Every structure is written in C-alpha cells, then in structure tokens.
C-alpha cells in the first residue's frame, strides 16, 4: 500500500512553491524602491536558476518594523510565484544564487527583512552581508 501511495508522488515534477515579495518602499516607508528594476532582476534570477516564475500585479501590504519602535511600513509589493522541483530546492548552488539575490535585494533596496516562502514555510532574511552561506 505504501508503494502505491508513493507512486502517486512522482519525482522531478515542479511541485515546490517558492514565493518572494519585491517591496515598493525602503525600510523608512517613504523612499521608493526601483521596483521595476527588482522585478526584472527577480524574473531573470528565477528564470535562470529555477526555470521560470510568475510575477503578480502589485498588492497592498504592511510590515511592522519591530526594530524601529513598531513603525508600520505601508507597501505595494509584487509577489512572485515560482514552482520548482524537490531536487532543485535542495541544490546548494541554486540556493546560494537565491540567497545572494535576496541579500542583494535587502542590502541595495534598504530593507529590514526579505521574506520568502518555501513549500509552506516562511523564511525571513535579515542579515544582508555578502557571500555564500555554507551548510
């Protein structure tokens, strides 16, 4: 019975969802981010690393910056959905490229946090220093 169940879940299919948020404002909540530039950069990265992604139209968002006395940052993020395989999401090189992109986004777009959803788990990146993260 277990083998029959396992056969339902074929390998190599793009069943892992990665969600990335591209912000419209810097951490101060006032300064605009060059969102079009970052959307194109994200499309290029997802296409090259994971084979594709979809950027949805701007949404309304808010983020509470606890390191800035709970200041609310109103935002209009662009949300990316990227479907990838179980193998690719565990590939060190691909994870490094995704991590490098997120940290560059955080650093250059002056963010407090870059949010990613992998599978069904929220991952927050707040350390934007350069370089790969060794496992």
């Amino acid at each position, binding site marked *: *019975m*277990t083998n029959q*169940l396992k056969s*339902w*879940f*074929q390998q190599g*299919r*793009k*069943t*892992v*969802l990665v969600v990335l948020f591209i912000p419209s404002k810097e951490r101060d909540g006032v300064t605009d981010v060059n969102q079009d530039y970052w959307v194109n950069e994200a499309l290029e990265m997802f296409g090259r690393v994971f084979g*594709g992604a*979809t950027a*949805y139209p701007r949404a309304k968002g808010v983020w509470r910056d606890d390191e800035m006395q709970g200041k609310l940052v109103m935002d209009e993020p662009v*949300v990316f*959905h990227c*479907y990838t395989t*179980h193998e690719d*999401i*565990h590939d*060190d090189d691909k*994870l*490094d490229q*995704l*991590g490098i992109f*997120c*940290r560059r986004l955080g650093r250059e777009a002056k963010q407090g946090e870059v949010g*990613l*959803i*992998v*599978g*069904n*788990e*929220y*991952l*927050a*990146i*707040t*350390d934007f220093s350069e370089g790969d*993260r060794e*496992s």
Partner: protein
Amino acid sequence: MKKLKMEKIAKRLGAERRGKATAHSGYFGAAQLAEDISARFKVPASGGRSTDPSWDKKRLVPLASDTLKSLEKLSKEISRDGLVRVEPMQLAAIVLEKFLESVKESDRKTLIDRALQTLDAESSEEDMETPASG
C-alpha cells in the same frame, strides 16, 4: 510529496525559519491554484485540450450532483481568469492530489486503515442482506 529539508534550505539561504504559511483561500489561494494548474498543464503533442502529462490513468468516479456542481463552478472561475482552461474532473484530480500531499506520512496508515474498516463494514452489511443461494 517528499518532505523538504527546511533546516538545510534556511541555513543555506541565511534565513530564519518563522513558521508555517498556508494559502488555501482568497485571492492568493485562487491564484496559487491557477498557477499550479498553469505550471503543470501542457498541450498534448497530438493536439486537444491541455492536461497534465503525468496523468496516464483514467477511472470512472461516482460523484454526488452537488460535488460536480462545485467542481464545475470552481473550474469556470479559474478558466474565466484566462490563465488556463481546466475541466471539472481535471480540477477534481488536482484537489485529490493536493489532499493526499497534505496528509502526513504518519497519518496515511490510519487513514487507509479507517477506509478499509469502513469498506469491510459495508461489505459485511451487504453480505448479511444478500439471501443465501442454492
């Protein structure tokens, strides 16, 4: 679906794990489902409507009218967005797959045992109702 090694993924990304996130309803739930369908549906080389190439089996499944109506309504809503055209029973297959993916490995045996017990009970009742022949 094979379990993701989230600790490894988070560490490699330099990220902190903040907990589970789910999107099953509302705009993103619908968008996610539409994107899921769009990502996996392909037009067969021989032509015809788009389908998931991995679906290589067909089964006749009995449904309640209300269930079919719900599937028809939802598939129309998804198709209306113009992202992808999905038929009611294609949607049923995806919903079924997603349910099975959501059932934890540890819960599957319990689920199967209960299903088998129910089938056994129904089978026993039918045996009792059937007059002995000969």
